[in-house]
């Protein structure tokens, strides 16, 4: 009797633990969003999650190209005015129709979010005025020619004005809109009360640390969702996340560790890999003679010399790093964005490995015996980051630059990097807008508070020629002309060895047989793109 009860319990547990039945999708994710409020925290996990419920005027496809979303078309009327034609017949999850007023309401709400750790105002501050021409035509005005407006409107999800109690018209002003009584609070989204968007999936349940559950929106304007319910389960540790996939508890996981990919495939699971928009690069202190991590040069900073920077670049065997440390799951980089993205130069290749040439260049620059260098690196931020730094250090030591690696946890690394404590450091950059002005502006433009340049240029590289090209590009609305300017700016910095791109990360996803996923360059894990195979 007792034995049979036990058997019964075990088999029942087995049934409960078996893979979810069809129409249900469970995804194990490595990072949990901090809130379901689409405007609370401008960071990857949040931005990915909100796309299920809230849509933008324009959507980004898997290669970050813009495609029509809640706007069917857009065009610049003049240098500072854009016209967006909005999609008709779209309804929010509560049944209210989508109109231009909802867009104005959203832009009004974004600056009012309380305690936001990273605000979406970076994507709305360029908007100087908004005018509702008719319910499905919206004019957006900017102060200066602003070609990135379409990319920026794709970055924020649209809320319903009606569902949030707006009855009359809204008067838009940067300093606070009129006609709005109150804005929804972040908690209201987490509880589901305000989680009303137009997206393919609707809010069902959210328990922090446990799961986020969506259900299919049967009134969706586009192709209906493939799953009746979608559950995201945060499993932050790598091993347990892989185990959850192998045991059939989840159908799909993101960021499986590279060293486990073979095992996952051999157990009959599938892996999809896609080139990401994230470049791993080395940045070098080019501020002045005084630099903290260099020894044996009598107080001089050799990194100010272009020949030394070039020597460092050609001393690094990028192919070897990709093959041996990244298990082939990366692509050597010759620019700050992979080929095919807006603003990249066709045919730009990664630097050729040439240790002999590097030694010659060092001797020419007056360092025949090399010097000592400390390379700063995070050890838990990018894929195999500390190992890549170790490899770079060995390669540099081979040409005479005695390199030591100072690898620390991300929180400490960023603090020290931002305090300019490293003469050279390894870091990564993902271009959220998917075009060249993003890495150029942030990483290599001369730091300038007013223009918002050089926010992450901790090597303090400065090249007026390139700054001027970026200025010009950011004021050129014509796409072809802007692309040519960005290509030029990118080549200027690459040829000057102002920053050394190493490789582009390739993002893997692993999932069970019977489903497919198209890899995304923005590294987002979206149930929207998971389809039953066949």
């Amino acid at each position, binding site marked *: 009797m007792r034995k049979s009860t036990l058997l019964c319990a075990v088999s029942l547990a087995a049934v409960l633990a078996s893979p979810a039945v069809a129409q249900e999708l469970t995804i194990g994710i490595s990072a949990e969003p901090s809130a379901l409020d689409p405007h609370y925290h401008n960071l990857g996990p949040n931005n990915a999650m909100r796309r299920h419920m809230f849509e933008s005027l324009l959507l980004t496809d898997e290669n970050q190209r813009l495609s029509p979303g809640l706007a069917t078309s857009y065009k610049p009327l003049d240098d500072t005015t854009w016209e967006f034609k909005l999609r008709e017949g779209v309804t929010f999850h509560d049944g209210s129709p989508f109109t231009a007023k909802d867009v104005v309401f959203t832009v009004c709400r974004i600056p009012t979010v309380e*305690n936001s*750790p990273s605000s979406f105002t970076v994507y709305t501050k360029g908007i100087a005025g908004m005018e509702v021409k008719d319910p499905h035509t919206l004019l957006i005005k900017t102060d200066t020619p602003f070609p990135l407006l379409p990319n920026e409107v794709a970055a924020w999800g649209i809320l319903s004005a009606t569902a949030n109690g707006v009855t009359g018209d809204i008067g838009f002003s940067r300093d606070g809109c009129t006609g709005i009584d109150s804005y929804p609070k972040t908690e209201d989204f987490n509880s589901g009360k305000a989680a009303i968007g137009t997206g393919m999936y609707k809010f069902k349940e959210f328990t922090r640390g446990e799961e986020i559950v969506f259900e299919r929106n049967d009134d969706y304007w586009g192709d209906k969702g493939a799953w009746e319910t979608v559950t995201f389960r945060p499993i932050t540790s790598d091993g*347990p996340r892989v185990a959850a996939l*192998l*045991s059939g508890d989840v159908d799909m996981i993101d960021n499986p560790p590279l060293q486990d990919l073979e095992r996952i495939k051999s157990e009959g699971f599938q892996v999809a890999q896609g080139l990401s928009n994230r470049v791993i690069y080395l940045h070098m202190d080019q501020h002045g003679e005084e630099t903290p991590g260099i020894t044996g040069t009598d107080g001089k900073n050799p990194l100010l010399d272009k020949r030394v920077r070039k020597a460092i670049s050609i001393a690094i065997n990028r192919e070897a790093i990709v093959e041996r440390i990244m298990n082939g799951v990366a692509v050597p980089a010759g620019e700050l964005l992979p080929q095919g993205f807006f603003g990249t130069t066709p045919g730009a290749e990664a630097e050729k490995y040439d240790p002999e040439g590097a030694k010659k260049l060092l001797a020419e620059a007056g360092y025949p015996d090399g010097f000592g260098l400390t390379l700063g690196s995070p050890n838990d931020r990018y894929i195999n980051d500390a190992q890549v730094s170790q490899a770079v250090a060995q390669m540099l030591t081979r040409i005479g630059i005695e390199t030591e690696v100072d690898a620390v946890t991300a929180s400490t690394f960023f*603090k020290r990097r931002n305090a300019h404590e490293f003469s050279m450091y390894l870091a990564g950059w993902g271009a959220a807008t998917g075009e060249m002005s993003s890495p150029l502006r942030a990483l290599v433009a001369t*730091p300038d508070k007013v223009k918002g340049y050089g926010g992450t240029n901790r090597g303090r590289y400065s090249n007026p020629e390139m700054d001027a090209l970026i200025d010009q590009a950011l004021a050129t609305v014509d796409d072809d002309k802007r692309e040519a300017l960005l290509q030029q700016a990118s080549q200027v910095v690459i040829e000057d060895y102002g920053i050394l791109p190493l490789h582009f990360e390739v993002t893997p996803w692993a999932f069970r047989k019977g489903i497919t996923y198209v890899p995304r360059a923005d590294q987002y894990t979206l149930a929207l793109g998971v389809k039953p195979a066949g």
Partner: protein
Amino acid sequence: MLVYLLRRLGQSVFVIAAMAVLVFVGVYAIGNPIDILINPEADQNERAAAIARLGLDKPLWEQFLVFVSNAVQGDLGRSFVYSTDALGLILSKLPATLELAFLALVIAIFLGVPLGMLAGLKPDSIVGKTIMGGSILGFSLPNFWQGMMLILLFAVIFKVLPSGGRGETVEVLGVAVSFLTLDGLSHMLLPAVNLALFKTSLVIRLARAGTREAVLQDYVKFARAKGLKPRRIVLVHIAKNIMIPVVTVLGLELGSMIAFAVVTESVFAWPGMGKLLIDSIQHLDRPVVVAYLMLTVFMFILINLAVDLLYCALDPRVRISEVSA
């Protein structure tokens, strides 16, 4: 007695305050939470604005003063990451951790005591040696590895238990618990065993030592001479007497199971307080870390106090000395 309690209370306040200062300064020294939280695309102005929103633009002493003046009124601050009340956030995770710790405690007692007594009664038999050998493994294998092996064995190879998560929950008095549903229990089993393994080994050792000591004592010899059945001698006379050290140690271990089940909760993606703590440390979410550790100190003080008082109730020979307290 009252003086004793008051003095303990005074000490407790001091310990909690010292803890708050240490953690506050410690987390401040690690790094700047903004570097982790903000989107790298944000420019310098937005960065400065975000720092101001979280109150990180003020000097450390001023931030600390704000924290203290709020803490005195019972407000331990808002989480930088989630923008919710830090204490509320921690308490919302408490039930999950509590039920896991109690299940582990039950496993440790009901597995550890009988096995330990068995090993104590027959120290030279194969059974006794096997039990002791097993307890060494329980002690020495890393918790993380044990957890992964449990998952590999029961979830990946045999597929009888889920690999992680909390499973189905039911609301009892407004609190979601797992142990009342079969699905919830199946999710709890592996993490609870993982958490219990070390404690079980500890209990086995305590029970064995106690048993070996007790069998040689006069009252056991007397009971045997009186003709009592061996079963009664073991289950009543010996068992009762070895329980005092076991209870004392387990009481203290319960505290550490609740507060620091970090490894188990991470491995099994169990949404408890330990996982919250480790995530908060990674995000440098100072209000949560500080509130968590203050709460932990408070809990340990309470448990210690309870154990002291219990001990005195259990063993009439123990008196609380007002001088040495």
